[in-house]
């Protein structure tokens, strides 16, 4: 090939080529290099590279110095330095970019003595790739963001679903309880009141018969007295007289208890759309214990340490009841083979600290941080939903209350709650 052919190739090369000498004076620039520039330059040859490209002078000097000193090529990429030379995009009409994205190579040119006399600079237009890359990475960011949003939404849905499940469950239990309570309330009312009357009648009848017997003993013939004593003896009247009031008392007691349970059930089933009010903590503890009477078998002892004066929490009665129910039920289930349930309450200023402590199985350290997670349960399948304590947590959050759990496997668990005292609204 003749030299002119080389020159023609260089001129037509779609790569900007520029050659400088050791003084950084431009000795050659091909048409691609020259034509790409956005600054007006009739000819670059003879000009100083750094004064033509003042904006990038520091960078160019650093690069060229390193090539001259090290005699090795050096590179620059669009990712770190997109526009070394002010050149226009190769797609002025359809492209998104107005400036050319460039990869630049700085190559040493040596003479026969292996001395670097010139540096050639090649500018490759990578606008298309860069533009594509930028689009892809923007797209990736958008997708990433959407993905995060979806993830958050999914999480919210999960929580909502869990809450719905729980409230649905509570609602249906509530309806059932309310229905049962209503049905029992009427008959137990008249059973109780009739028992009351019955006791009154019985005492009167006993009194009457005893008086009658005394009169007969005083006045009647010996054989009638004997007859009477026979009848008494045969029917065990003395025992009946003794036992009848006791039986009635027991029945009355039983009826009273049934009434209490029914009332508790009805309270428990109250709709939780109630507003904020003063909640009598002791009353709630009592009614929860009544509802849980069945679980409170003879093996579990309950110790209460409550101050004399009543304590009122700022909260929703239904929710507080549910919280106590869930926590105490858990405690009782942890003590299936017996133990002590301690309920402690202290008032500190406008805070109320409630301790519910059991001597049950305890919670493994590895499980401790998950007990408030929805659906987390250590019970066997079908024994628990794993929603109880997550519900407790939700209630605590709603009440802006505090919760703390201490537990040791084999020794027991202690829940500490800190509630806000109810304050009467000013006015």
């Amino acid at each position, binding site marked *: 090939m003749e030299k002119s052919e080389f020159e023609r190739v260089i001129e037509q090369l779609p790569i900007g080529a520029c050659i400088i000498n050791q003084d950084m004076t431009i000795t050659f620039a091909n048409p691609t290099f020259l034509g790409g520039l956005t600054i007006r330059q009739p000819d670059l040859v003879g000009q100083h590279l750094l004064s033509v490209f003042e904006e990038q002078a*520091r960078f160019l000097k*650093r690069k060229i*110095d*390193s090539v001259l*000193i*090290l005699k*090795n*090529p*050096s*590179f*620059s*990429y669009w*990712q*770190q*330095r997109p526009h070394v030379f002010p050149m226009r995009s190769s797609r002025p009409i359809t492209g998104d970019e107005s400036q050319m994205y460039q*990869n630049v*190579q700085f190559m040493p040119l040596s003479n026969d003595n292996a001395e670097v006399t010139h540096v050639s600079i090649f500018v490759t237009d990578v606008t298309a790739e860069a533009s594509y890359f930028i689009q892809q990475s923007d797209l990736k960011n958008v997708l990433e963001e959407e993905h995060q949003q979806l993830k958050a939404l999914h999480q919210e849905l999960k929580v909502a679903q869990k809450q719905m499940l729980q409230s649905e469950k509570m609602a249906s239990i509530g309806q059932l309880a309310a229905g049962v309570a209503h049905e029992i309330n009427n008959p137990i009312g008249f059973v109780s009141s009739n028992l009351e009357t019955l006791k009154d009648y019985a005492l009167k009848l006993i009194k009457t018969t005893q008086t009658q017997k005394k009169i007969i003993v005083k006045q009647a013939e010996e054989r009638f007295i004997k007859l009477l004593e026979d009848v008494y003896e045969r029917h065990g009247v003395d025992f009946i007289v003794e036992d009848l009031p006791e039986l009635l008392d027991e029945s009355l007691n039983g009826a009273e208890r049934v009434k209490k349970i029914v009332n508790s059930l009805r309270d428990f089933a109250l709709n939780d759309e109630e507003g904020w009010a003063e909640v009598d903590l002791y009353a709630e503890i009592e009614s929860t214990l009544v509802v849980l009477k069945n679980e409170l078998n003879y093996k579990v002892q309950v110790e209460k340490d409550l101050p004399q004066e009543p304590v009122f929490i700022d909260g929703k009665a239904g929710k507080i009841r549910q919280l106590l129910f869930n926590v105490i039920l858990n405690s009782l289930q942890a003590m299936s083979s017996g133990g002590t349930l301690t309920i402690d309450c202290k008032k500190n200023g406008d805070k109320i600290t409630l301790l519910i402590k059991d001597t049950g199985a305890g919670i493994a350290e590895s499980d401790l941080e998950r007990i408030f997670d929805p659906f987390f349960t250590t019970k066997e399948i079908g024994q628990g939903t794993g929603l109880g304590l997550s519900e407790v947590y939700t209630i605590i959050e709603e009440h802006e209350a505090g919760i703390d759990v201490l537990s040791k496997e084999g020794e027991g668990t202690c829940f500490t709650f800190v509630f806000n005292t109810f304050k009467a609204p000013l006015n």
Partner: protein
Amino acid sequence: MIEINEDERDALQEIMNISMGQAADALARLIQTKVSLSIPAIQAMSPEDFQGMINSLSDNWFARQSFTGTIRGEVIMSMHKDGCNALAEVMDFDLPLDDAATEELVLEVTNILSAACLQGFTSQLELSTQLNMPAFYYPLQSVHSNEWSSILIIEVEFFIEQMQFDARILIGLSEGSIEQLLIPIKALLED
């Protein structure tokens, strides 16, 4: 595993020592500061060894630069993040370094060290290779190919005491290249 005998290992170590000396000199001349370096360590590695070594270099930036020709492989440069600012200052970068400038600095150092060192050993062994452009490398994100079972890794550490600069050059030779590399080494060891 690749097997090279003691003489070959000694020869390769000496050749690498000379090459790395040239690389250190290149960097030293550019930043006008003395650069210290360790004795080259040469070892055959499995993919797991290699991954383990890369993973052990936490708090490092990585760049890689491949070379092709009679022998093929990659130069991997790791550079401790703490040393970047001081080095950037002597190399006339604007401080504080932003992400792009940090990458530029790491690529620059990679290019300087790998070009000088590759030039060093290929010229001593009269091999011909071309060094490609360096690229940033995020080892944790990339799963290296398991197309090889064993490679030869030559590792040298560069440090500049007064500026906390600590960098490492790993030259990994592909499986077939080791035989190619041993031909001139054997010739040098003859007679």
